[in-house]
C-alpha cells in the first residue's frame, strides 16, 4: 500500500504537470506569441474552459498527501511555508488574470490582466520547478522531522536550475498546445517558439541530469537496482527525439504528444531518484521521511486508496469527455468559446 500510494501520488502530480503544465506554458509565452488584443484573447480562450479543472489535479494530489503521508505533508508544507505562500499568491494572480481579462472591453484593463497572466504563469512554473529540485536535492530535516525553509535555503543553484528546466519544458509544452489550438499568424509564431524551446528544454534536461548526480550522489541507486526504472529516462529521451522530429508544421498534435512524454519521463525519473524517500534529510539519513515512516496506518492507507482511486476513474472518464468538447481550433466568433 505504501508503494501503491507513492505511485498514485506520482501519477497525480505527473498528470498535473502535463495538464496545468500547458496552461502555465501558454501563459509564459503569451506576451511573446500574441501581439494584439484579438490574439491575446485567443491565447487565453485556448485554456479558459479547462484551466480550472487542470489545476484541481494539484489540489487533489495535495489532499491525497494529507491522508497517505501526513508527516510529509506536515513537514514539507510547514518547511516550505514562505515559498508556498508566494506560490499561492501567484496562483491567485494567474487564476484571476484568466477569469477577469475578458470581462471589460477596456484596453488598459486587458493589458493589466495580460501582464498578470504572464507573470503569474511564468513564476508558478519556475517555483514548482524550484520546489521539486529541493525535494530531489534534500532538505535540512532535523530529528523531529521538520525543517525551516528560508528563501536563502530554497533558492540555491540546483533548485534554480530545476526551476529553469520547468520553465523551459512547460513553455515548450505550451507552445505545442498552441500549435494544436491556433491558426494563421499565431500558429506560425507558436511553431517558431516550439522549435526554439525544444533546444532550451533538451539543454536544461541534460544540465539538470548531470547536476542531480552532483547534489545527490545516490541518485542512480534505483536505476542500478531495477532495470525497468530506465523506462522513465528513456521516455524523456524518446520524447525529446520525437519532439525534434516534429519541428515542422503539420506535426502539431505529435509535437504536443512529444512534450507530454517528456514531462512524464522527467517526473517519473525525478520520483525514482528519491524513492522510497519523500523528503530526504541532508543532515542525517535517519531523519529522512520516507513512504514507510511517514505514512498513516495500513487501514487509513487502504480505505483512502480505494475511495480516491474509484473517484479518479470517474474523473478521468468525464474529464476526457469535457476536454473533447473543446477540441479544435479556438476562434473568436460567437459559435466558439
Amino acid at each position: 500500500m505504501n508503494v501503491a500510494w507513492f505511485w498514485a501520488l506520482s501519477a497525480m502530480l505527473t498528470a498535473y504537470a502535463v495538464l496545468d503544465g500547458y496552461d502555465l506554458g501558454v501563459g509564459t509565452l503569451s506576451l511573446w506569441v500574441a501581439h494584439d488584443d484579438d490574439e491575446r484573447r485567443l491565447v487565453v480562450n485556448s485554456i479558459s474552459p479547462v484551466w480550472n479543472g487542470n489545476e484541481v489535479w494539484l489540489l487533489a494530489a495535495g489532499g491525497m498527501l494529507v491522508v497517505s503521508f501526513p508527516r510529509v505533508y506536515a513537514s514539507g508544507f510547514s518547511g516550505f511555508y514562505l515559498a508556498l505562500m508566494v506560490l499561492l499568491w501567484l496562483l491567485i494572480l494567474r487564476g484571476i488574470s484568466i477569469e477577469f481579462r475578458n470581462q471589460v472591453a477596456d484596453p488598459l484593463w486587458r493589458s493589466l490582466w495580460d501582464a498578470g497572466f504572464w507573470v503569474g504563469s511564468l513564476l508558478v512554473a519556475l517555483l514548482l520547478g524550484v520546489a521539486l529540485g529541493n525535494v530531489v536535492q534534500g532538505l535540512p530535516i532535523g530529528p523531529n522531522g521538520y525543517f525551516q525553509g528560508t528563501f536563502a535555503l530554497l533558492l540555491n543553484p540546483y533548485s534554480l536550475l530545476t526551476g529553469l528546466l520547468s520553465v523551459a519544458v512547460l513553455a515548450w509544452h505550451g507552445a505545442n498546445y498552441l500549435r494544436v489550438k491556433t491558426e494563421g499568424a499565431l500558429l506560425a509564431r507558436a511553431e517558431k517558439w516550439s522549435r526554439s524551446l525544444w533546444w532550451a528544454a533538451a539543454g536544461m534536461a541534460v544540465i539538470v541530469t548531470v547536476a542531480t548526480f552532483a547534489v545527490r550522489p545516490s541518485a542512480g541507486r534505483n536505476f542500478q537496482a531495477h532495470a525497468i526504472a530506465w523506462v522513465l529516462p528513456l521516455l524523456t529521451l524518446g520524447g525529446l527525439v520525437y519532439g525534434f522530429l516534429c519541428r515542422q508544421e503539420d506535426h502539431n498534435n505529435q509535437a504536443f504528444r512529444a512534450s507530454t512524454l517528456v514531462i512524464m519521463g522527467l517526473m517519473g525519473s525525478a520520483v525514482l531518484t528519491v524513492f522510497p524517500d519523500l523528503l530526504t534529510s541532508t543532515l542525517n539519513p535517519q531523519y529522512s521521511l520516507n513512504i514507510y515512516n511517514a505514512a498513516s496506518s495500513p487501514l487509513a492507507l487502504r480505505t483512502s486508496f480505494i475511495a480516491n482511486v474509484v473517484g479518479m476513474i470517474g474523473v478521468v472518464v468525464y474529464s476526457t469527455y469535457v476536454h473533447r468538447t473543446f477540441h479544435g481550433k479556438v476562434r473568436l466568433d460567437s459559435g466558439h468559446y
Partner: protein
Amino acid sequence: MSEAVFAHRIQFAFTVMFHYLFPILTMGLGFFIALFSTLHIVTKDRRYADAAQFWAKIFAINFALGVVTGIPLEFEFGTNWSRFSSFGGGVFGQMLPLEGVYAFFLESGFLGMFLAGERRVGRTLHWLAGLGVAFGSLLSGYFIVATNAWMQHPVGYELDPSGGVRLTSFWAVLFNPYAGWQYAHVINGSLLAAAFVIGGVGAFYLLSNRHLEFARLSVKTAVVAGVILALTQLFPTGDFNGKNVVQYQPTKLAAMEGLFETEKGAPLAIIGMPDTEKGILIDPLYVPEFLSFLAYGDFHATVEGLSKYSRDLWPPVVLTYYTYHIMVGLGTIFIAQMLIGLFLLWRRKLYSSRWFLWMLMLSVPFPYIANEAGWVVSEVGRQPWLVYGLLLTHAGTSTNVAAGETVFTTLGFAGIYAMLSILFLFLVARIIHHGPEESVPAASIAAGF
C-alpha cells in the same frame, strides 16, 4: 496564548472567512441556476433561460474567487497546522482529498462547458453541465463539513502509541453523526443567502423600473424559496445541529447561550451582555425554561453551565455568545421578512410594495453575516480544543513557522484580498448594471402583478 499560536489562528481565521464569502453564494446559486435551467427545459418558458444565463455570469466570477481563495486553505492545514496534520492526518484526511476528487473536478470540469453555452455544447449537455456544477458544489460542501465535524466530534479513531490517532473506521468518519445536520444547516444557509441575492437584485430592478419580467421572476423565486429556507434554517437544521452541540460540546453550548451556572429548567437568554468576570448576563431578557426545552425537549431538564468546567476549558465566551445571537437574531428577522413577502405575494402586492422591495434589496449583506457568524460560533466555540476533547489548539500549530513569517504573509493576503474585493464588487456591479439579456420584451409597469 503565544504570539505564534495567535498569528496562526488569525491567518487561518482570516483566510477562511474571506474565502467562505464566495462558497456561500456558489453552493446556493448553483442550485438555483440548475433549477432555472431545468424549469426552462420543462416549461419552455424563455424567462427561465434568461435567468439562468444572467446568474451564470455572476456565478462564474464568484466561483473563480472561491477557487483562488480556497487553495490557501488546503495548504494551511500543512503550513500553519503541521502538528495537527501529523497528529490526525490519517483520520480527518480521509475526507479531505474526496472534496477534490469527487467534487472539485466535477464543478470545475463542467463549469467550462456550462459557460461555453448552449450553442457550443447543445441544450441537453448544457443542462447536464449545469447540474454537474451544482452537484459538485453541494458535494464539496459535505466533505469539508465532514472534515470539520471530525474536529468537533472525533469518531472512527483510536489513540496511537506515537501520540497521534489512527483510523478504525472510514464509514464512521464519513457518516459522523455531527456532520449530517451541520451540513444540512450550512447548505440551507447558503441556499437562503442565494435566495436573498436573487431577490435583492430583482428588487433593485423593480425599484429602478428595469428588466421587469426578470425582476418579477427573481423576487417571486426569492420569496417562495426564502420562506421555506428561512424556516428550515431554524427547524430542523438549526435545531438538530444545536442538539448535536448540546450532546457533544457542552462547553460550546454554555458559551453560546451565556449559561454560566448549571440549571434545571434553564432559561433562554434572548439578549443580555455576558460579564465573564462575574459569571452573569447584564440586562438579560429571558424566556423561562426554554433553553432546557430546546436542548432536551424537556422544560425541566438540567443544562450544564460553564462553571462545571475549569476556566482553561472555557471557549472565548463573549465572542461565541454574540456571534451566536447575531446569527439567530438575523435568522429570525429573515423568517419575518420572507413571511411578509409571501403575504404580499398572496395579496398580489409584492411587486408594487416599494418599502418591501427596498428592505429586500438592502438585506443582501445580512445572510452573509449570518453564515459567517455561525462559523465563528462553530470554531471559536470549540476552543480551546482544535479537536474537541483530543488536541488543544496550541498543540496543533507549526512550530517551525515563526510568528513573524505568519504576520508577514497574513498582511500579504489582506492586501491581495482587499484588491480582490474591490475587483469583485466592480465586476458584479457591471453585470447587474448591464442587466439580463431578455428574450421577451419587458412588460410595462401598468401590467402590475
